[in-house]
Structures are given as structure tokens and as C-alpha cells.
């Protein structure tokens, strides 16, 4: 068990954030712990051979999805990535239907037709995880265009990684968002690797500078500090809601697990165990937990209670998914066309 005093305090300790209501802070904590538990369980289920295919885990990056999604309303849209479980859960996704989808079951969000990389929940504005790097950037920007054309009070958030920054679609879509002042927020999750390659070997310049070149205001924040992410997200989403156009936020973080399930330890030889462990000492959840206990009026027992509830929810969800039936073979030809 890590010593709490080893953890650095959240970088943003100021007047504003001390005024955040306790239930909001506890909601952040609950969502982060939910993602962590979900991903650990996914790893476990995969390791035991119950899960077909594979998944890309969000472990270690929880503060990004939560800091952003906690500022969103139900009707707001998000697009996610191949590493999408965290965004979906943070936006309110149902762990039961997510696990069922991961196991290819009929009770899954996509009735087993999509799997980990394609979960959609239109009722929550989740326009989908996406198996194509940068694939969601056009969709999120188009959702911003439709909000503007339909004069609807909803905004659109695109999550994408440092790898997607080098895909052409980002520039095509973000350029139009800037030209047309669309209500879109671009959240770049710099998790230190695009698959197995660090940005230092893939990206000339930086994400924020590239955004600024298109006239899109940007910020770069510590993505392991949920309050820093939250403050940047408030800035960006308020700009979108007030018709001020798109914003760009880089969140610097780290992916604890491999790129995918098969990427463990030294399989691909691109990072050291020491590096992973040094980032684990910067755990966004431990860090926020220690902040809540030190700075806020939170008792340890309150956080334990949340931990316990989350465990129950996730354990019940995975059990539900295990018991659920596979889709009927007749479904293979359904849903090709509307």
C-alpha cells in the first residue's frame, strides 16, 4: 500500500476549486473508482479466457475521462477511442451492458455486434468508441455542426490520443470547427505512447501549438490531476456553450497497462518496468483520495463505502454478463440497413 504522503498534492489548489461542492467531488471519486474496478475486472475476465477478442484498458488515465465528462449534460455528445471504457463509464454508461458487450452477449449495448471498441449509447449522447485512430473526430465535429444548425443546446466532445494527432482527419475536422465556431471540445489524451511509439518519435511540435495554429485556444494540463482536468474542461465547455467556438485541451497522463491485452511486460520492448512503476506512484485515484482526506471534509469511511459500493456494482455487472445468452444466429443479417 502506497504512502499517501508520497503523493503530490493536486496542482490546482485555489479558491475556485475549494468551493466545489462535496457531492461533486465524491461523484468524481466514484466515477474514477468505477473505471479502475471495471478495467481490472476486464483484465481478469480476459486472462481467464472468458472474453473473445481483446480490449484496450484505460487504467491510470481515469482523471481525464472523469474530469471532462463530469462537466457534461446528458444530451451532450462524446466520441471515444479504441481505449473507450473510461469515457463511456464517465458519461454514465451502464457497466452491465458494457460487460455484456465485451463478452459478445445479446444484452450488450450493441447486442454483441461491436465489442469493446464500438460501444454506443445514443440515449446518453455517446456516439461511440471507435476502432479507427481519429475516426471519431469527424463524427464529434459533425455533431457540433448539427447542434448549431438545429439550434440545440448541446455540445460535443472528442476524446482522442496523442497518436490521433498525426492523422489528417484531425486537421480537416478541427479546421472546420474553428472556421464555423462549432461547439466542440477536443480532448487530447497524451498517454505517452501511440501504440508503442512515444510522441517524441512521432509528433513534431505539440498538440496545443497545432490547435493554436488553427485559431483554436488550447491548454495543457496534468491529466493525472482530476481537478486540473476539470478546470480545463469547465473552461472549454463553457466556451462551447457560449458560442465561442472549439477549444483544445491536452491532458498528460500514462497508460499503465499495455496498448492491448497482449502487450504485457517486455513483449514489445518499448518501455521499462521502472517507468511504469514511477507513473503508478502518480496514480490519479490515490492522489485525489489523499487530497479529499487532507483538504476536504471527507472521512476515510465515506471513501471506503464508495469503494465497496463500486465493487458490488462491478462484480454484479460482470456476473450478469457471464450469465447472459449469446445473440441468436438469426441476428447476423439484421441491422445492415435501416
Amino acid at each position, binding site marked *: 500500500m502506497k504512502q499517501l504522503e508520497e503523493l503530490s498534492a493536486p496542482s490546482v489548489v485555489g479558491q475556485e476549486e475549494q468551493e466545489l461542492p462535496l457531492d461533486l467531488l465524491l461523484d468524481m471519486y466514484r466515477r474514477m473508482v468505477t473505471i479502475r474496478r471495471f478495467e481490472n475486472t476486464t483484465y481478469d475476465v480476459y486472462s481467464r479466457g472468458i472474453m473473445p477478442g481483446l480490449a484496450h484498458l484505460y487504467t491510470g488515465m481515469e482523471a481525464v475521462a472523469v474530469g471532462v465528462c463530469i462537466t457534461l449534460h446528458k444530451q451532450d455528445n462524446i466520441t471515444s477511442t479504441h481505449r473507450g471504457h473510461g469515457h463511456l463509464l464517465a458519461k454514465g454508461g451502464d457497466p452491465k451492458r458494457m460487460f455484456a458487450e465485451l463478452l459478445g452477449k445479446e444484452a450488450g449495448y450493441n447486442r454483441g455486434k461491436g465489442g469493446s471498441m464500438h460501444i454506443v449509447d445514443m440515449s446518453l449522447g455517446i456516439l461511440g468508441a471507435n476502432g479507427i485512430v481519429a475516426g471519431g473526430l469527424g463524427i*464529434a465535429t459533425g455533431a457540433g455542426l448539427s447542434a448549431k*444548425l438545429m439550434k440545440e443546446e448541446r455540445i460535443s466532445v472528442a476524446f482522442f490520443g496523442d497518436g490521433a494527432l498525426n492523422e489528417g482527419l484531425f486537421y480537416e475536422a478541427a479546421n*472546420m470547427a474553428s472556421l464555423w465556431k462549432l461547439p466542440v471540445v477536443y480532448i487530447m489524451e497524451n498517454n505517452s505512447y501511440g501504440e508503442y511509439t512515444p510522441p517524441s518519435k512521432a509528433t513534431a511540435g505539440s498538440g496545443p501549438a497545432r490547435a493554436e495554429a488553427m485559431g483554436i485556444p488550447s491548454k495543457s494540463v496534468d491529466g493525472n490531476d482530476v481537478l486540473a482536468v476539470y478546470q480545463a474542461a469547465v473552461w472549454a465547455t463553457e466556451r462551447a456553450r457560449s458560442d465561442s467556438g472549439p477549444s483544445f485541451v491536452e491532458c498528460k497522463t500514462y497508460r499503465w497497462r499495455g496498448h492491448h491485452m497482449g502487450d504485457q511486460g517486455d513483449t514489445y520492448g518499448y518501455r521499462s518496468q521502472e517507468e511504469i512503476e514511477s507513473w503508478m506512484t502518480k496514480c490519479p485515484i490515490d492522489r485525489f483520495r489523499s487530497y479529499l482526506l487532507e483538504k476536504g471534509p471527507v472521512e476515510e469511511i465515506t471513501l471506503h463505502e464508495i469503494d465497496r459500493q463500486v465493487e458490488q456494482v462491478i462484480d454484479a455487472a460482470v456476473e450478469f454478463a457471464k450469465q447472459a445468452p449469446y445473440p441468436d444466429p438469426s441476428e447476423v443479417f439484421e441491422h445492415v440497413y435501416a
Partner: protein
Amino acid sequence: MSTPERTGTIRDAINEALHEEMARDERIFIMGEDIGVAGGVFKVTAGLREAFGEERVRDTPIAEAGIVGLAVGAAMTGMRPVVEIMFNDFTTLASDQLVNQAAKLRYMTAGQTKIPMVIRTAMGAGRRAAAQHSQSLQAWYCHIPGLKVVMPSTPADAKGLLKSAIRDDNPVIFMEDKMMYAQKGEIPDGDYTTPLGQARIHRQGDEATVICTSSMLYPVLEAADILAAEGISIEVIDPRTLSPLDEETLVNSVLKTGHALVVDEGYQSFGVTAEIAARLQEKAFDYLDEPIRRLGAADVPVPFAPSLEDLTIPSAERIVEIVREMRA
């Protein structure tokens, strides 16, 4: 009461369909490169910006993947975009958005979403535009489940099919042969629609079936006249939509004539002609008097020089020769 009919071009017909549909449904908007102020390079969208404003008739940057990507997102969230991709060749720049996103989202999400979107694009050779502005890539999109592919050949069909495509809840690739924009014909007035997936028999005949798509109708009709003078009666059928394909009408004709030629301006190898021929032999093998013949574009990048380009496109002369061989 008879329906009043007017004569106009395919360009007029498409423009009219866009006007009528945009007036009918404000969720419809169009976007593309220079489609607003300039009215499009082929002037197909002229006057729409004046009628509906620059928000709904949206000039875009030159960014095909972005344009189609935004259309997918807008379609998922309640709009019904109609996109113009200036040349069919440029749709390759938007391939991920068409093939991996638009075509698959409904299926992958088990019907949670739909993508009501039309991509209008100008295809076809003959304009001395060389290899990057002349292709007919319909087979690419027919190959992808989830997309519909529509190819009108007359002004009436252009109007009726475009209105149906816009009202369809799926992504539809609407292929316009750039050499046909000035093609004249009747344009039915008012709310005239042509169902997707319904072939049209342009000429009845009983000695051979010639199936032809888009602008290939015209050399085929010319060939039909020449052959008729020789006493050979051919049935001319335009499928009008390739996906979905009205297999029944095509097969029934071949059951009657026992001879079939398929003409399409896409490349012959692995193309539309190959697929239609395969389906005909699966359903009508016992009724065929000889192998099904095919005529597509020559398997070369479209050359610039007129003396070379003309050799790559199916011609009335070649169609006549093949039918004569078939009947020999």
C-alpha cells in the same frame, strides 16, 4: 388528371430535387467544395444558396474526409446531410469515413443509430480529364454492406432517385455521370420519387438482354437501333440502383432471351459487370444459350489524349459487335 411534364437536363433535375427536398424538410442541408457561391463546378447546385442560405448550403474547405466525417456525425444526431464530392476520384480521400464509419455504424451498434446521408459525386470518363478525374468507382462502394449505390441515367430518374435517396435512412452514394449533366429528357413535376432497388426496362426485346448502368444507356440504345435494323431485337435494362440490385427483373429478362451482355463504365475486372454476370448465371444458368458477356472500361488508368481515352470507354460499336457475336 395527367401529370404535367417538362423537358430539362439531368443537371436541372438534380437541382430541382434538391430544391424540393430542402423546402420540404429543414433537417436537410448540403455541403461540399464550392457548391454555394459558385453553384458547384458542374453548376448542379446553382441557386440553392440564394434560396436556403449559407448555413444550409455550406461551402467547405477542400477536405473530403472531414466533409464526409462531419456529415456522418450530423446524420447521427438528427440532420440529413447531402454532400457533394466533386469527382468520384476524390471519394477515395474519404474512404475511411464512408467504409469504416458510415457503412458500419448501424450494424455495429445493432440499430441504435442510423446515417441518413447522401454523397453525390461526378463519375465517368470522356471529358478529357485524365486518370484522376474520370473514374467510375461504383464497384468499390457496392462491395461494402451498409452503403447503397444509385446511378441514374435520365432526368426523370435523376430527380426521382435523388429524392428517394435523400429520404432513405442509410448512407447512399449517388453517382452522376459528368458527361450526362446536359442530357435532356422529361422531368416530372412535383413530388416524383423513384424507389431504390427497382430496375427500368428501357426497351423490350426478346433475342438478347443488355443490362447497362448510368450513361452506358445511351450507347446501348444506339446499338439497339443499329441491331434492330439488322433484325435483332434486344431488351435494354437499367438497374438504376446497384445496391440494392433488382435481381428479379434482370433474371426474368434473361430467362426470356437466353443471352446477356452487361455494360458498365467501371473497370471490367472485379467490377459491376462481373457481379451481375455471376448472379445471372447462378439464377438462370439452364436458360442461357451461351456464356454471359461483359463490357466495362478498359483496365488502364484513364488516358488523357482523346484518341486513347475513347478506346477505354464502352462504345455503341463494340456493343453491336458483341451482340452480333452472341447471336452468331
